[in-house]
C-alpha cells in the first residue's frame, strides 16, 4: 500500500449515458479514487421523450438529454465531488457549458488530438472554451498509474445501469 498512503487524492467521475430500447435514456456517474475504487454512484431514472419533443428538439435532443438533463442532474446531486469528470462520448463534452467542473473526453492514443493530455493508458481532450480545465491533470494526473485502463470503469457503469433498469422493470412487473 505504499502508494495508497499518499495524502493527495484525485477523485475521478466516470459519466456514461445510454439509450435502452423501449425504456429511454439513462445516465450514471461513478466517482472513484485514483486507484479506481468506487466512492459513490448515482444513476437517473429512465427519460423517455415523447414524439413531439423528438420532433421539436431534432438533432439537439440527445445532447440536451445527456448534458442539461442527465449529466447536470447527476453532477449536482453527487455527494463526493469529482476533480475531473471523464466521458467516452463526445456529445457529453458539451456538459461543460452547464457545470463548473472539468469534463474530459477519453481518447485512445491513436485518435488523440495534439492538445490532449495523457492519463493512464489513454489521452484526455478538454472543452475548447475552458482551457484551464487541463490544470487538474497537471496538478494531480501523475497519481494515476500509466497502466490504468480508464475505459474499464465505464463497463462497470454500463453494467450497473443495466442492472438498475432490470430491477426497475422487475419492480414494475
Amino acid at each position, binding site marked *: *500500500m*505504499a*502508494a*495508497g*498512503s499518499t495524502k493527495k487524492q484525485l477523485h475521478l467521475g466516470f459519466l456514461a449515458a445510454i439509450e435502452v430500447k423501449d425504456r429511454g435514456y439513462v445516465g450514471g456517474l*461513478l466517482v*472513484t479514487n485514483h*486507484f*479506481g*475504487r*468506487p*466512492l*459513490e*454512484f*448515482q*444513476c*437517473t*431514472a429512465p*427519460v423517455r421523450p415523447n414524439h413531439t419533443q423528438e420532433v421539436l428538439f431534432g438533432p439537439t435532443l440527445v445532447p440536451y438529454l445527456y448534458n*442539461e*438533463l*442527465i449529466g*447536470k*442532474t*447527476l453532477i449536482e*446531486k*453527487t*455527494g*463526493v465531488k469529482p476533480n475531473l469528470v471523464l466521458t467516452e462520448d463526445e456529445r457529453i463534452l458539451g456538459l461543460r457549458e452547464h457545470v463548473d467542473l472539468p469534463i474530459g473526453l477519453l481518447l485512445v492514443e491513436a485518435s488523440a488530438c495534439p492538445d490532449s493530455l495523457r492519463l493512464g493508458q489513454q489521452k484526455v481532450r478538454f472543452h475548447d472554451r475552458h482551457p484551464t480545465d487541463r490544470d487538474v491533470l497537471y496538478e494531480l494526473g501523475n497519481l494515476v*498509474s500509466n*497502466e*490504468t*485502463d480508464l475505459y*474499464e*470503469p465505464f463497463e*462497470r*457503469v454500463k*453494467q*450497473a445501469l443495466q*442492472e*438498475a433498469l432490470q*430491477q426497475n422493470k422487475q419492480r414494475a412487473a
Partner: protein
Amino acid sequence: MTEQPANSPDHASPTFFPASTLPASTPSDLSSQLAAAFPTPAVSLPGLDMPVDIFLSGINGALVRQPRMDIISSDLVTGVQIENRWKPHRPKLPTFKLTFPEGIEFVPPKPEVDAPEKGKLRSLKPPVTNDEGVEQKKKQTRLKPPSDALSIQDRLFYLLQPPIENWLAGQELVMPFEPFDYQYEGIAWLFSRKSALLADEMGLGKTMQTITAMRLLLRSGQISKVLLICPKPLIPNWQREFATWAEELPVTTVTGDTARRRMIWEMSKPGIYLANYELLVRDFEELEQDGITPKFDLLVLDEAQRIKNRDSRTAATARGVNRKRSWALTGTPIENRAEELASLFEFMEVIPPKGTPDLRQLSRLSDEYILRRCKDLVLDMPPRLDRPAWLELEGAQQHAYKVAEKEGVIQLNDLGDSITVQHVFELVLRLKQIANFDPVTNESAKLDRLRADMEEISASGGKAILFSQWTKTLDWLAERTQDFNPLIYHGGVPTKHREPILAKFKEDPNAHLLLMSYGTGAVGLNLQFAGYVFLYDRWWNPAVEDQAINRAHRIGQKNPVVVTKFICKDTIEEKIDRVLQEKRDLFISILGAEGNTEASMGLNASEIFGLFDLKARDGDSTREIGPEPAAA
C-alpha cells in the same frame, strides 16, 4: 391632509380656534374677541398664515408640518433594462444514489533496509503477446453479486467494484506474487459471499485466496474484525502466510493465560484474530457463562472437517460465535458420509439447525456455496486417462490365492473377539502379494498384461513408470522385463545412486520402464517425460496413488498420461477398489468434482474388517466380529 406653505401671503392670521365657538366676523376682530372671552393662554403660532380648517370629524386641521425638501444626486440611467424573469424549464429527474463505505487502511510495516525488493510486485507471468508482438489485454476477474443479494444496493456494490486484478496490481494493495487466474476467481468468489466453503484440492492456495479476500473486504469497509480458527499446529503457518500476503494486516494470536486471552477476546480493534479449535471451545464456554459475546464480522474455519460431527462441542461452539459471514476451508468436505457436509452447511447458515438435506439438495447447495478446483483442471494440463485393467487369475496362481484366502479367513474366525485389525491386515497383505504373482510357480496375470502393454509402449519409444508397494515385487519384475531395460528406484537403492537412475531413465532412449515403490517414488520427483503409469498393486489410499501418478502428470507434461490400474477379479483387490470407489463416488455425486482425493479418504479399521465376512462362533450360532462402523 393637504399641506400649505406656511408663509403664504394669502393666509396671514396666526391663530386658530374651533369654528363653532366663533361668531361670524372678520379674522382681525376675532383675535381680540377671543382674548377677551378666554383669558387663559391660547395656542399661538406666529408666522403661520394658514386658513383654519376644522373637519367634520373633529380633527384639527392645524396639524400641519412644514415640508422638508432636500436635493440628492442620482446616477443617470443610460439605457432601458428589462429584467428577465423567464427561465427554461428543466424537469426534475429522479436519481438513485449508492455511497460506498470508506474502508480500513492499515499502515504496512516499514520495509527492511536489507530487503529492498520486499514490497515490490514481482510478476510471475511475462506479458502475453500476440503474433504481431503486441501485448494482449490481461484477463480481468469481475466481482459478481451472489444469488442471495437481492437489493439493488447489494447488487450494485459488487458490480461497481474494480476487477480484482486492478485492485491487486500493486497500487493500492501490494501483492508479493501475481496470483494465477483461478486464484483471482477464488478471491472474487469469496469476496462476494457471506457463506462459503472453499474446498480446493491441496496445494492450490486456499490460504492465499482466503487472506487476499479478507484483505479486500477490510479495505472496502465490508468487514472489520475477523476470527480465524485452525488446528493448533497450523497457527505458525497462518502467521507466516499473513506476513507474506498481507503484511499490513494486524494479526492477533489468541494465546497466553486465561486473563490475557480474555483481554484479547474483549478487544474491539479491527484486524485478524487467530485461535485454535481447542481454545475456541474452552474460552467461549467461559465467556458465555460470564455473559460476554465477542462479535466478529467474519469467522473462518480452516480444516473445517473438524466440525463434521454437528453434535460435537466444537461444531456447536463454532455455530454459536456471533458473526456476519461464515467461511469454511477444507480439502475434504466429505470423508465418509454426506451428513458431514450438512454440518458444514449448518455452520454456514444455509440450512436450518438440524436440517437434513437429501443428496439432491446437497448437490444444489454445493453448486451455490462450495468452490472446488483440482490441479489438472486449473493448471491447463493434458488429461489423465485412467484405465482399470481387470484381470482374472488362472491356474496355479488362482489356486494359491483361493487356498490362502480360505485358510486365512478360518484362522481369523478362530481368533474370535481377540481379533485385531493387524490380524486382518496381515491376511490382506498376503493375498495382495499372491495377486501380484504366485511365489511358488511365478505365474502372474499382471505380468502377462504388463509385458503386452510394454511391447507397444517401447515400440513407440514411450516411457512408463510402474508402482508397487513391495520392493520384492519390483525386483521380481525387473528380472522378467529385461527386454525393456528396466531401472529400479526404491528405498533399497542407496541415495547417491538414485539421481543417476532418474537421469538415465530420462536420457537413455532404450530405458522404457522405471520400477518404483510408492514410498520412495510417490513424492517430490518430476518425471513428466513419462506418458504411462502402471499401478501394479493398489495402495490403501487413493491420495497416495494420485501423488504417485502426479510424478508423470504434472506441470510440464505435454501429452495425456495413461494410467493403468491392475485389479484382479474376485480377489481382495476388487473389494478394496470397490470401497475406495464408493468414497470417490460419494464425493463426486455431491461436489461434482473428479480426479481428486485426499489423504483422509483411506480405509479405516471398520472398512478393513469389512473386506472379509468374519464370524465368531457363539455356541451353535455365529455372530459378526469387528469394530463398529466409524461414527461421524
